[in-house]
């Protein structure tokens, strides 16, 4: 099937079979590789993107459900105030190690701060529970979200 996918503000004409996960359209068709494949079963969060502003796992989001939706990936999240704050905090604190999960961590963190600009530690743990990091950078992810919250306050 052919459909139009609006990704990072740009409309792309995509030819993909129904049932194709958004993840593989983004990575293999559009060649935007910031969104990562980690597990394929929505249990690691590496593939997190935003659909209409809310985080979803792109490995379990199907292309036929996205007609008219606005998809945002890590490549464009820095254009939002919250995205820029999170990226700045991540840099200040050197949150990353291998970095492979961090696109997903940042997309989820932006989702959290969009809903809840001053999350408690418990809020962070609840919201970020689905984003795995095998390097175990969790301490800095927690601190990064708190720092981003401060940056957002100005």
């Amino acid at each position, binding site marked *: 099937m052919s459909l139009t996918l609006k990704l990072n503000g740009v409309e792309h004409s995509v030819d993909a079979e129904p049932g194709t996960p958004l993840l593989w359209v983004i990575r293999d068709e559009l060649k935007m590789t910031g969104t990562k494949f980690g597990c394929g079963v929505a249990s690691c969060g590496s593939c997190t993107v935003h659909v209409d502003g809310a985080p979803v796992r792109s490995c379990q989001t199907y292309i036929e459900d996205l007609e008219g939706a606005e998809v945002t990936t890590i*490549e464009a999240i820095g254009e939002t105030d919250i995205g820029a704050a999170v990226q700045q905090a991540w*840099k200040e604190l050197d949150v990353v190690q291998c970095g492979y999960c961090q696109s997903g961590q940042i997309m989820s963190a932006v989702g959290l701060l969009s809903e809840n600009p001053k999350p408690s530690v418990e809020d962070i743990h609840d919201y970020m529970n689905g984003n795995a990091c095998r390097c175990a950078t969790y301490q800095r992810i927690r601190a990064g979200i708190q720092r981003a919250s401060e940056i957002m306050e100005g």
Partner: protein
Amino acid sequence: MTVSTSRRGFLKAAAATGALLVVGLNAKGAFAAADGTTQINPFVKISEDGRVVAVIKHFEKGQGPATGLSTLIAEEIGVGMEQIDYEFAPSNPELYANLAFGQFQGTGGSTAMANSFLQYRSAGAAARELLKAAAAEAWGAEASALDIVDGVIIGNDQSAPLGEFVARAAALEAPAEPQLKSPDQWRLIGNPDVRRLDSEIKGNGQAMFAMDVHLPNQMIAMLARPPQSGGLVASFDDTEAQTVKGFIRAATLPNNAAVAVYAENTWAAIQAREALTVEWDLSQAETRSSAQIKEEIMAALEADAEFNVLKNDPAPMDKADKVIEQTFYFPLLAHAPMEPLNCTIEANEDGGITLHDGAQFPTGPHMALSQIFELPMEKVRIKTMLAGGSFGRRATPTADYQVEAALAFVITDRSRPVKLVWSREDDMRGGYYRPAFGHKVRVGLSDDGNIVAWDHRIAGQSIMKGTAFEGFSVRDGVDHSSVEGVSDTPYDIPGFHVGLTDTKKATSTLWWRSVGHTHTAYAMEVMMDMAARAVGRDAVEFRLAHLGDSKDQQRKAAVLKLAAEKANWGNPTAGRTQGVAVHKSFGSFVAEVIEISGGGAEDVQIEKVTCAVDCGIAVNPDVIKAQIEGGVGYGLGAAMRDEITLTGGVVDQFNFPDYEPLRIGDIGAIETHIMPSAEPPTGIGEPGTPPSAPALANAIAGAGQIVAVLPMVNDGISFA
């Protein structure tokens, strides 16, 4: 087609080419490239605009060598971190050997900084001396009167950016023994404000991992592998797969180990592989279950040891007033790095090939691919990409996944690059596990509360035996990686007997972050706590009493004291219990105090981890802290609830839902304190892991229960 897939002896082949370690300062003069960039020596490139590029011989899986080795170069030249970039070295075991490994390029054993510290500083210092000599020549000045500060050459009442002298410097002879800066001149080494060079690209999607390679016209290959180790392809039927849009073909690999499914994209490859039907020849396949593996190991602990690794006293246990005994079991573990294994191979116009890979041991796949493609080494090129974690998995003695990719490529017409992609399930079920081990320890104690005898039996599956790395680790039949952390403990232990029995492998085994220390530190440190408790002594005081005056013992004692002090040892927060462990691995000393709530009948919550580390000179203190934080999390996550099990030789786990990774709420704050040191840098990627699980076990024991079977959930522990 005859394809050689034997990897045995490739290290011997490497050794036969002779030669010593080549330290990068012999690249005489160097060359001025057309783009205005000059390669000063194998480790430093500088362009006329003053940008310095550090050429990194180690791969970056997050542990920080890209930043660390760049720091050394920047320090010695005299540029700021904002003036230096890095790139990964090509595969070249002569120029880029790991000096701890012989003539072999690779990253492992937490050696990246230790083996590079002098080499990269020397390379930077040579570049500095060349640039100063060039400026001196241009200015008619003495080089010794010049200095380089923030990329500017100053002195002789003049100053100019160093880029102006790059071309002239390239024509000069490099100094044989460049003068290194002294520690009091360091501005970057040891500076806690130095940031990672790869932070920004890993936060905005620009970082390029091997999984992100998209070569024009590439095919994706996924392999259907046998359900059990040792199975072979009998036949396959791809009728269903042919209905998948994007499916290209399926073919059996030349070694019959798998069926390769080729497709236009990853999703098509995933679907087509699912649609494939394979008949397996399982006549030689592994059929044992993990329960049998465990039985065999536990039985071996009760029989005479195969090897007497240490035997100091014929009957020391007789002298003890009190004897305590405990057996331990450690399961198979998967590494499960976030980036599933993958690599890409393309044909080059000159008849050679290029491998794009997060290559941990470039020399391994380099030699393997040279054999498979029957190409000289110089026609096989490796482009090292960022790696999304490894924890040891990307470094196999067999170059396993690179060989798979090579076999999948060699049977094509080679007109299209082949990208081999593993799924998470492939990774979880694909072998190369941390082997299962058992320990049985008897400790004899005197009435005055000291150790008088220690009988330590270890049984398990050797990592090194039967691999090309056997020569590194096996002496007189003993694989040192099975006993490291016990037989070489810094503790003063009289009457110390260590026995080892190798048990048969049911799957391929591999080093897993901190190798043998993953189990030996646990047995040692839980036993030390049990011994202290048995004689009514404090766990910290008891350990200190068994650490004498040697340098190693004093360093171990010092981190233990520092961690205890910072954790307020003996005075936990109300309602919490503390546990401690300290261990030496990879030349470094790490002590950890873990404070838990719960225990006993309640769910355990890890509230706080306080760490002290002595890894010699701390080049990048913040990276060191990050590695301790990560090492603690990696160790604890596995110890709490992870294991790989086999039923009839088939792996029971599939994906993260049944090999649950550590999650953000599992651990509270981790605080790391770095011991000031003038000793040469030692390991940091691994040493944070070994003390973590025993410190947790000792905290749980403080709340009433000895945890002797891992993962802890198998020994009745539940976590909040």
